[in-house]
């Protein structure tokens, strides 16, 4: 209350030269903090005592669990089918504007999934992810500008340049971990943005590259058609990303990444080449950002370095952490939350950073594993197999 006193209570009307004392605000803050702290205590209490009691119950009583239900074939297939139809029909059911928003959300999903490889599996805190994203966008932008390269050629090239850039950034930070890695990657993100801004001769600097073509579907599409088309491209990319990441997760490479995250010295002692694994992590993460970058360039038809600020990296990070690091459904949900909430609650848009900040603090205390935590694969073990 004391801290907020100067801004909330005192209002100086400089025009009339009088000071307004808004005591009512003080009361509201008092009541607010009282209830919030009460809620806080209650949640902390529940956190300490809760899991011990509630968890076994849920398992034993066969309480309805969404996860269990979705695991069963009978439920799973119709659910997926309905979902697929909804997704396919989406552009025809809603306004054109909504399709655009949804495409951005899907792009964010892919970015989240990509960053999730680096953070969720590899355990490398990367705060310059937007640099990879920019790399993809500029690959398309510049190649179009100089050579007139079409979208479909730029998409794989964007992925490749993302990966290459990932490795290039990866090499100098090989020896770093934890906070130091975070700081250096943050700096790299900013450096690459500044480079794009200042190499005006080559990248056109802050004014950016304009009139990048949208992808055509055999013929040149209208604005509406192209947006719908991009929506479907994004859907396919999301599915592709999920497919690839799920397969990586349960593979030798995936295990190596995770071992590195858990304990790098032990991992190295088990014969894992840390340098190689870190580079693979960066490259695998950057591939997706590179692709999304190309899509972004095609969607907005205009790119400038201003779209790839630290804020962008942070938002992706928030999506990953909020949804659940290492969990694919979690990250997808997180990405939707982070993009759609500010879109649909425009009134709150100004406070979104505050909201995400509060959400992150609350999450890290009460549910550090994220909204949908990762489920570990169980291997069939038993007498039947061996």
């Amino acid at each position, binding site marked *: 209350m004391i801290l907020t006193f100067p801004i909330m209570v005192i209002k100086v009307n400089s025009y009339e030269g009088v000071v307004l004392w808004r005591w009512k605000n003080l009361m509201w803050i008092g009541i607010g903090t009282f209830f919030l702290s009460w809620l806080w205590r209650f949640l902390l209490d529940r956190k300490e005592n809760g899991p011990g009691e509630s968890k076994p119950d849920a398992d034993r009583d066969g309480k309805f669990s969404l996860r269990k239900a979705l695991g069963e074939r009978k439920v799973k297939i119709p659910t997926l089918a309905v979902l697929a139809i909804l997704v396919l029909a989406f552009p025809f059911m809603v306004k054109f504007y909504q399709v655009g928003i949804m495409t951005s959300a899907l792009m964010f999903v892919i970015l989240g999934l990509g960053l999730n490889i680096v953070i969720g599996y590899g355990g490398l805190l990367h705060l310059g992810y937007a640099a990879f994203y920019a790399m993809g966008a500029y690959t398309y932008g510049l190649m179009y500008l100089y050579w007139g390269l079409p979208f479909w050629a730029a998409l794989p090239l964007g992925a490749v340049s993302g990966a290459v850039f990932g490795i290039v950034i990866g090499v100098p930070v090989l020896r770093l971990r934890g906070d130091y890695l975070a700081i250096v990657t943050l700096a790299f993100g900013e450096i690459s943005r500044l480079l794009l801004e200042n190499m005006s001769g080559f990248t056109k600097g802050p004014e950016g590259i304009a009139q990048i073509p949208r992808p055509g579907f055999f013929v040149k599409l209208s604005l509406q058609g192209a947006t719908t088309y991009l929506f479907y491209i994004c859907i396919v990319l999301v599915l592709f990303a999920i497919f*690839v990441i799920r*397969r*990586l997760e*349960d*593979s*030798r*490479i*995936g*295990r*190596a990444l*995770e*071992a590195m995250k*858990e*304990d790098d*010295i*032990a*991992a*190295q*002692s*088990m*014969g*894992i*080449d*840390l340098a190689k694994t870190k580079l*693979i992590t960066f490259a*695998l993460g950057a591939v997706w950002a590179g692709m999304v970058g190309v899509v972004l360039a095609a969607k907005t038809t205009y790119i400038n370095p201003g779209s790839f600020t630290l804020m962008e990296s942070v938002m992706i990070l928030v999506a990953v952490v909020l949804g659940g690091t290492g969990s694919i459904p979690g990250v997808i949900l997180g990405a939707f939350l982070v993009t759609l909430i500010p879109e649909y609650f425009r009134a709150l848009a100004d406070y979104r950073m505050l909201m995400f900040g509060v959400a992150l603090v609350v999450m890290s205390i009460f549910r550090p594993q994220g909204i949908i935590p990762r489920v*570990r694969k*169980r*291997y069939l*073990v038993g007498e039947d*197999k*061996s």
Partner: protein
Amino acid sequence: MSRTILDINDFSMVFGGLRAVDHVDMHIDEGEIVALIGPNGAGKTTLFNCVTGVYTPSEGNITVAGPNSEIIRTNGKKPNKITELGLARTFQNIRLFSSMTALENVMIGRHPKLKAGIFGAIFRDKKTRDEEERVIVDSLKILKKLNLAKYANEPASSLPYGAQRRLEIARAMATEPKLLLLDEPAAGMNPQETKELDDTIKRIRDEEGLTILLIEHDMSLVMSLSERIYVLDYGKLIAEGSPDVVKADPAVIKAYLGE
């Protein structure tokens, strides 16, 4: 006389002004169980870390017998390269991959023996699938050998303490080492668990034809297991020989009990 597997020659490790290990000579022959003992801070774990490549030795040579009995100098090699040469270790303070299951921990140990790359993982071709299948089967076998099969799908951190220690050994064995380095495998175990560990170590030595170097403070375990003992004190080697010889050595008694 069997061949020497690990040879440490005039080896020192210096941290700033501190000589943690001072001109030590050691050798380990194939099939032996050798113990390295000494009071706290004597430099045992430092020596381990140098042998396994976590630190680079300041002076001297560490050589390992290669696959074709050639002699390979390991100073300055990365830990993963040394593991590939057939050395595997456990850690004094358990360093399992705690959120991964016991089986996955052992599967990590198989890592250097496998080949599947990124594209193998994505396309999941027949070779990769077969390899995965084999890893799971092999890893389970190793778990069974150490009586850990029932924990296969449990996260490593939820295992009982003794089982975690055994899992570290299982993980190290998964790399198919010639020389297994155990850093205080019995630390924190009760007498019953220590007894079981004693049997387990002997059994895996005989079954797998392993050579074992262990650091241990539990003297009953050291005396019952090891064929030769090296004693370190303040970085210097003060005694070596069979358990009986070392037990009677006045320098050793002095190091442990004082004047």
